[in-house]
């Protein structure tokens, strides 16, 4: 599976209700250690309510400059959340379906 298949797809819950779009995929470097860098294990997906175009990442980092660009983009992506791999039922070419009773987490990255 390649990333551009997934980025921008709709995210739906167990009942088919739309939750937003995949704006990013999160990895953690905590898999088997390699010669250079550890393996990058998928942690989950970041779901954005309005749009997937969050390449600027303002909603996830603590940046506040330049005003008002940062604030505008933050506002546009309010309500973004992280869904862990364990809560994903299906990743398809059209949409990503979540399991029943999934948990939504904050999508902020620690700086």
């Amino acid at each position, binding site marked *: *599976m390649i990333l551009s298949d997934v980025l921008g797809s709709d995210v739906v819950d167990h009942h088919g209700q739309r939750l937003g779009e995949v704006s990013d995929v*999160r990895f*953690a470097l905590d898999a088997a250690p390699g010669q250079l860098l550890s393996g990058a294990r998928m942690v989950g997906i970041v779901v954005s309510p309005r749009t997937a175009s969050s390449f600027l990442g303002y909603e996830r980092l603590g940046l506040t400059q330049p005003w008002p660009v940062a604030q505008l983009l933050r506002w546009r992506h309010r309500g973004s959340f992280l869904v862990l791999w364990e809560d994903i039922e299906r990743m398809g070419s059209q949409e990503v379906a979540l399991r029943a009773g999934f948990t939504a987490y904050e999508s902020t990255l620690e700086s």
Partner: protein
Amino acid sequence: MSKAKRIQPSEIRPAPRAAGKVLDAQLHLLDRQMLDVDGVPVSTVDDVELSGPEPDERIPESAPAPHITALLTGPVLGTRIFGGRPPSSRLIRIPWRVVAGVDTVITLGVRSDSLDASWVERWLRNHVIARIPGGRHDP
């Protein structure tokens, strides 16, 4: 085609801590420059290949999380922008195991000449530049 109305999850919990460094693909990997071990640019990261899951198949309950197998470059940029995807055999891969660091650039632990990704560069070097006098001279 207007999007279906969306619902917002009722509660959002604080994120769980991760064991190692955390990377968001779009934020930290995609469209970044890759430099080889000598600092020579190789290409940009145009896409990322994962080890799974199978598309459209139901994921079993305790299936292990997929990991990044390779960074992709080349024609996959065209399909990323315009849609579709190239067949797997045509993808130009930089295996994750040669990645040494992720920062404002992605550093690789190998030299660019050893990678598929720079074959156009080598071809032009051998067939065009080398034929013009002065091409191999230091500036």
